[in-house]
């Protein structure tokens, strides 16, 4: 039991009065101090009694959406909590989640207030939240933590005995790479891809970025502003675009303003797609983790509720960091070969050869990431000419390279939507590095 500020003040007053009484040998001060001390002890006993009754009245019932999941999957947990709150007390009950589980969203605690001027009543609440296991094994919710307080005292207890815990969530491991026995059509071939035909109408004019098609340069505007401008033609669209949203990692910094803009842009695009094409497909990823896929959704409200549920920074179970795939390595090898031919210095040549051997060795051992395989499985049955990738570009973009590469392999035009370059880590050379068809800031 802890004393709150009011009780701390009274305790100090009691000590001062008793010391003063001893020094002055004053019965009057002793009476004041001792009665105050007795009152404080009586209040403590009363609080303790109420606290015990409150704890004894707690009933929890926890249900999991699924009891067996793969690592990185999201599970909805619903806990019904009933408690009898004594008068003048506030009771807070929070879930005691095991380590290895991260909360994606929702509330894991609830506060019960006593009903004023009424006898203690049993109150019932439901807390709903979603969790993502980041390690495999058996996860057991150990129980709840109860904290009760009144004006003078505060006490808390972890209720971890059997009636308050469970059920067990079994988390299956998930590999980072696809098993070698499983054949996945991935980015092993570099082919000259046929681009989607563009229309004749000019949708927008924007500044030139490295990698833009030179044939699209608007020379009149370029001459006028002394800066390269390109035309963006409206596509001959007959299929709704796929919307891919790359949600930021919760552990990393991100601009809330940019994120809000991204949410608005995604919602606008989804609405536009439903209005124009009667349905929308949305793929939510966060780094190399596929979170949710909504394929050909016709109901705008359902789409919006899914976006509302997911559009927040999330925890990532898998991270990529400058992850090269086969074509990246091949490009590196080709570059090294050409440099090796150009180099006259034998030591430089030797270095290039040694590096090339390392790349070749890496390429032999290279496996297909599970993310790529999942992406292929998701995109393969999809009918789309274009896809819009929304991302804040706050960290490594290896996963986006994978997304773009797979989309391009399926002859899908990729348009990247990112925050404006000012104040964010994005740069104008992303387009060329990532291989997207267009790149624009959020409207």
């Amino acid at each position, binding site marked *: *039991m802890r004393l709150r*500020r*009011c009780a701390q*003040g*009274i305790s100090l*007053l009691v000590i001062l*009065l*008793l010391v003063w*009484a*001893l020094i002055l*040998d*004053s*019965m*009057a*001060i*002793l*009476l*004041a101090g*001792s*009665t*105050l*001390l*007795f*009152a404080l*002890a*009586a209040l*403590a006993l*009363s609080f*303790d009694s109420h606290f*015990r009754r409150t*704890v004894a009245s707690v009933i929890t019932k926890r249900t999991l959406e699924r009891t067996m999941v793969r690592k990185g999957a999201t599970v909805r947990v619903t806990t019904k909590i009933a408690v009898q709150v004594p*008068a*003048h007390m506030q009771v807070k009950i929070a879930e005691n989640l095991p380590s290895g589980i991260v909360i994606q969203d929702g509330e894991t605690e609830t506060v019960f207030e006593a009903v*004023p*001027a009424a*006898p203690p009543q049993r109150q019932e609440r439901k807390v709903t939240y979603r969790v993502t296991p980041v390690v495999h094994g058996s996860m057991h919710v150990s*129980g709840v933590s109860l904290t009760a307080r009144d*004006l003078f005292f505060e006490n808390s*207890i*972890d*209720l*971890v*005995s*059997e009636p308050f815990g469970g059920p067990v969530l079994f988390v299956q491991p998930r590999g980072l790479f696809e098993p070698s026995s499983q054949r996945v059509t991935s980015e092993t071939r570099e082919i000259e891809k046929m681009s989607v035909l563009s229309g004749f109408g000019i949708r927008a004019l924007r500044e030139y970025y490295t990698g833009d098609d030179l044939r699209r340069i608007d020379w009149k505007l370029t001459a006028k502003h002394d800066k390269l401008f390109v035309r963006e033609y409206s596509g001959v669209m007959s299929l709704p675009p796929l919307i891919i949203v790359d949600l930021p990692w919760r552990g990393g910094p991100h601009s809330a303003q940019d994120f809000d803009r991204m949410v608005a842009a995604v919602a606008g695009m989804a609405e536009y797609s439903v209005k124009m094409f009667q349905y929308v497909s949305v793929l939510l990823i966060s780094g190399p983790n596929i979170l949710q896929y909504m394929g050909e959704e016709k109901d705008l409200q359902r789409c919006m509720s899914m976006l509302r549920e997911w559009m927040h920074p999330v925890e990532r179970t898998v991270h990529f960091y400058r992850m090269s795939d086969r074509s990246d390595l091949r490009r590196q090898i080709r570059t090294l070969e050409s440099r090796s031919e150009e180099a006259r210095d034998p030591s430089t040549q030797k270095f290039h050869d040694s590096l090339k051997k390392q790349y070749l060795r890496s390429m032999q051992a290279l496996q297909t990431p599970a993310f790529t395989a999942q992406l292929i499985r998701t995109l393969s049955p999809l009918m789309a000419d274009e896809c819009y990738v929304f991302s804040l570009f706050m960290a490594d973009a290896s996963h986006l390279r994978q997304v773009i590469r797979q989309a391009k392999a399926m002859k899908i035009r990729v348009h990247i939507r990112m925050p404006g370059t000012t104040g964010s880590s994005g740069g104008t050379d992303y387009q060329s590095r990532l291989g997207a068809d267009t790149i624009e800031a959020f409207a």
Partner: protein
Amino acid sequence: MSLPLRLDYGFFLLMVAGIIIFTVAASPSSWYLYPPLLVLLGIVLHVTRTSKNRVFYIICSGQPLVIASAAMLVWAGLYIVWMLAGIVLATLGMLGSDRDWQSYTAFCGATLVIAAGIDASNHVLLPLVVIGGLTSLFAVVQTIREYQFRKRYTGANP
């Protein structure tokens, strides 16, 4: 006006009446102390109507009155303690049911015993030692009870 507010002012009026009666009966030389101390408590009662820590301010402003009254007569001091407790409990809304009134009566009875003990003593030291001993005993018993209680709910073997 809500019931607790009426009650706390009621206890204050009873306190004023009690002070007047005790002052008239005992005719103490320090009679001039009571009016300003009562005014101080009255002001605090009025000013802290909406304050979150009203109870603490009331207790702090009431203690000088308890000491001054007990200096006149221990029983007068005890009466002020009862009234002050009434004001505090009314402020907290803890005088709403019969059970609350029973608790208040029990508190008055217990403080009567304390006051009787103090009245019977000649010096502070002995009652202070008794109070210190009882407080330590209370703390020890509470600690053991708390331990047993926690053991039951934290999944340990009984």
